[in-house]
């Protein structure tokens, strides 16, 4: 309110959650929805073209595809789940990692510049699928009650303390996981994008709209910071895709493990 008094020209409205509610382009379909589909097409298109030839001595494209594929196949799936069962989960984990990665990178791609997963509901969907997957294979491997016991009763604990441990383990392993998984991805993308638009819109306002001469160099600084934050975001976008996939693999590994 005090700032409004000082600034005579248009008032600066800081960006908020409202900036993530994009208008529908046609019939209830908005930009993030199209991005989601585009990301899926890009991922499957790239991998299909890269893997189609299947030459023993790969070309550049095939080599890139193999590197990306083996990064998830060996670096995440095989290392976490173990060489006995991991092949079953490779398609899911590969798709998951690159789907999230491409959608996150959309936050910095020119003309798109919106991370799909800053819409929380998309993250909810993926977390729900992961939840169904790891609980499903756990029940398939151990039976319903065997699985509940497997997840809720840690080995080596006995006596009255079990009364405390069992609900805690059940809540942390079965109930809370999908929420932390979804919120971690969503919050990182949301906050990163908010920070970026704050610095760019704020910089623009200080540089162009504000009457105070002193604000103009500050606006330049704001733009420079926005560029620096973009590079930070690039790292965060990769890490969040990696963490989501890694945690999914760890949940699956924990669910099908023979013993704790």
């Amino acid at each position: 309110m005090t700032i409004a008094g000082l600034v005579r020209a248009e008032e600066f409205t800081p960006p908020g959650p409202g900036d993530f509610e994009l208008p529908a382009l046609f019939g209830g379909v908005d930009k993030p929805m199209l991005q989601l589909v585009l990301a899926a097409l890009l991922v499957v298109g790239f991998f299909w073209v890269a893997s189609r030839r299947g030459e023993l001595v790969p070309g550049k494209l095939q080599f890139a595809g193999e590197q990306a594929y083996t990064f998830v196949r060996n670096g995440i799936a095989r290392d976490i789940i173990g060489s006995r069962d991991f092949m079953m989960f490779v398609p899911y984990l590969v798709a998951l990692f690159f789907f999230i990665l491409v959608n996150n990178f959309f936050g910095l791609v020119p003309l798109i510049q919106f991370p799909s997963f800053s819409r929380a509901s998309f993250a909810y969907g993926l977390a729900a699928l992961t939840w169904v997957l790891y609980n499903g294979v756990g029940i398939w491997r151990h039976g319903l009650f065997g699985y509940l016991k497997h997840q809720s009763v840690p080995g080596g604990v006995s006596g009255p303390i079990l009364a405390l441990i069992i609900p805690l383990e059940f809540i942390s392993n079965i109930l809370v996981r999908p929420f932390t998984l979804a919120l971690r991805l969503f919050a990182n993308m949301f906050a990163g994008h908010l920070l970026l638009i704050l610095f760019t819109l704020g910089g623009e306002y200080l540089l162009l709209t504000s009457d105070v001469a002193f604000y103009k160099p500050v606006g330049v600084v704001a733009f420079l910071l926005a560029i620096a934050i973009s590079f930070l975001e690039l790292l965060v976008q990769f890490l969040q895709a990696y963490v989501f996939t890694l945690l999914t693999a760890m949940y699956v590994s924990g669910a099908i493990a023979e013993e704790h």
Partner: protein
Amino acid sequence: MNWILAAEGEPNPLTPHVAEIVLGIVVFAILVALVRKFVVPNFEKTFAERTAAIEGGMAQAEKAQAEAKAALDEYTSQLTHARHEAARIREDAREQGATIISEMRQQAQTEAERIVGTAHTQVAAERQQVLEQLRTEVGAIATTLAGRIVGESLEDEARRRRTVERFISELESQDASPASSGGGR
């Protein structure tokens, strides 16, 4: 809660939207299905083929190595065999040479003895022959001598008799000494 209430005009970003959740799940499920069907089998097939090719190459190299080793072993064994053979042949030759030398020596000795024997016999035979001849000649000379003696001096019977007796005895002593010396040899 306070923030949510305060920002009455702002939407809550955590609010789930069913359409978005469903879309996210459907799109991702289709992606997983496509990756499973078209991407993973291709890559795994390529990897398997590559592994097989590398292992095949290694097997081939191992086979070649084994063959080379077998050939080397064979050559080595052949060489050893040949060395043994050569040593054996040398040994045989030496033995054979020694045998031949001793045989030859034996033969030479025999031959020498035979020659010496033959020579002795011949010498003896020739001596006998000479002796015979001599005896014949001495007989002839004696006859001649006797004829002359008979022809020249018939007057002195006693002298004649002595002369003949002396001649005969001389002849006998002459005959006896070479005969005794020849028998003594």
